[in-house]
């Protein structure tokens, strides 16, 4: 049901009944290592190409989510997924394996919540009984496509973010147990003219702020309604900017825990990742890993996950264009929370 201009309130709240997270070596050395299902010790995962490695990871995530829910892919009526590669090719191959109706989506790093919101809406409206949302990113495939060859020695500035290697999948349904999806707020494209692709945090921060404010206004909520409001990869440059912008707009964001996936995934001081993590997989592996676990265990009651995406292409920034950004928010509620 529409609330305000941008938010969907789910009268029948769909539940996340199963999740799976697969990550690469660098993420496996990070502070969240014990929240992931599988950690690959090698970046190439013994595949011939980086692209095949990413595909393997996403395949594993979707299969693991099915196994955990004790379901077969034929029990699902929709698969919504996206990744960072051209033509979201990783997902098309994974959807081929699943052999179920498929909607491919692209929202750069916001794809995780974009796909989850769409699946939640389809489940809540009764269009499907079981749906899966999945997202992935791979450091080497992203470097190859957006930046330089993996082994090229270019010095990265301190504002740069490290694309994470990881895939996350979630199965959503009205039947079964799990944290529920209360609402989703679909973001608008916000572009305040940042052109530096090595400073995506600053480019995306206003989009996160816009969506968070829209969410509160549409649902008559305040930061106090959530135990945790977590942005999807603004990292150490963008996250403080978002916080300051929210405070400037009069949103008392410091009343609750306001964190960022790009800051959580790595140990920023110890691991060589500049400003922190990014990538479509980043918010996916944290939401479908740590956050869903804590919502299930009752450690968290309500969480607002705001995944942010920088929607530029390698051509657009080379031509000097600005970076259009977006953020999608999904409100999650723990089990047994009224």
């Amino acid at each position, binding site marked *: *049901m529409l*609330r305000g201009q941008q938010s969907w*309130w789910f*009268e029948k709240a769909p539940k996340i009944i199963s999740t799976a997270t697969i990550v690469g070596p660098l993420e496996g050395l990070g502070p969240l290592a014990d929240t992931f299902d599988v950690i690959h010790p090698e970046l190439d995962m013994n595949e*011939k*190409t*980086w*692209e095949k490695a990413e595909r393997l990871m996403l395949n594993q995530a979707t299969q693991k989510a099915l196994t955990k829910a004790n379901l077969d892919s034929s029990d699902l009526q929709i698969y919504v997924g996206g990744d960072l590669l051209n033509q979201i090719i990783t997902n098309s191959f994974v959807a081929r394996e699943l052999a179920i109706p498929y909607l491919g989506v692209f929202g750069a790093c916001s794809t995780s919540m974009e796909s989850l919101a769409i699946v939640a809406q389809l489940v809540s409206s009764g269009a499907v009984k079981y749906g899966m949302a999945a997202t992935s990113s791979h450091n080497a495939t992203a470097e*190859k496509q957006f930046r*330089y*060859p*993996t*082994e*090229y*020695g*270019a*010095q*990265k*500035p*301190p*504002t740069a973010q490290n694309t994470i290697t990881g895939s996350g999948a979630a199965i959503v349904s009205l039947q079964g147990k799990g944290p529920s999806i209360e609402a989703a707020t679909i973001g608008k494209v916000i*572009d*305040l*003219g*940042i052109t530096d692709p090595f*400073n995506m945090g*600053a480019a995306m*921060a*206003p989009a996160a702020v*816009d969506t968070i*404010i829209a969410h*509160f*206004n549409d649902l*008559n*909520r*305040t930061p106090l309604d959530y135990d945790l409001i977590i942005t999807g990869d603004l990292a*150490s*440059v963008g996250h*403080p*900017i978002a916080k*300051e*912008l929210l405070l*400037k*707009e*009069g*949103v008392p964001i410091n009343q609750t825990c306001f964190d960022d996936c790009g800051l959580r995934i790595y140990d920023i001081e110890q691991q*060589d990742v500049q*400003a922190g993590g990014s990538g479509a997989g980043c918010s996916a592996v944290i939401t479908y890993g740590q956050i869903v676990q804590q919502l299930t265990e009752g450690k968290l009651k309500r969480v607002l996950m705001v995944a942010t995406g920088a929607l530029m292409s390698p051509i657009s920034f080379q031509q000097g264009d600005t970076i259009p950004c977006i953020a999608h928010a999904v409100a999650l509620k723990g089990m047994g929370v*009224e």
Partner: protein
Amino acid sequence: MSKQKKKTVTKYSKSNMSSTEYQSFAKTQEPPRTVLKNCLMAFLIGGAICTLGQGVTELYMHFFKMTSEEASNPTVATLILVSVILTSLGVYDKFAQIAGAGSAVPVTGFANSMASAAIEHRAEGLVLGTGSNMFKLAGSVIVFGTVAAFIVGIAYIVLGIGGH
């Protein structure tokens, strides 16, 4: 929504910061670039690579009785070989994050740019992958190097200095 607590919440307004205002604000939030440290590291590591090159030249001169001019080509080849091996082992890019221009400017950086592109695009085949992508990064060095040489050559002719 029926189960939700009814409460009155003041709507948050949006001040609509202009692009220029935001850009200058964002600029103040960037961590300062460690320019001095970067310059120092580039100087030290770039200098070390050149010293290594000089050492290799001396070796060729000493053991193979080459003149310094004769020794320059095998020296460059040796440094390229070292750079390609380090690139293949996945070490050069990590080293470059510390060295910056120090590892990019010497011939080892040029070799790294070609080797890394060649390795990266091998997956797309020898012709369309390695063959056509090898100069992806190094190509501009060649283009602008040739253009610069052309301009300098013209200057020599016009000014009547050098040349034969």
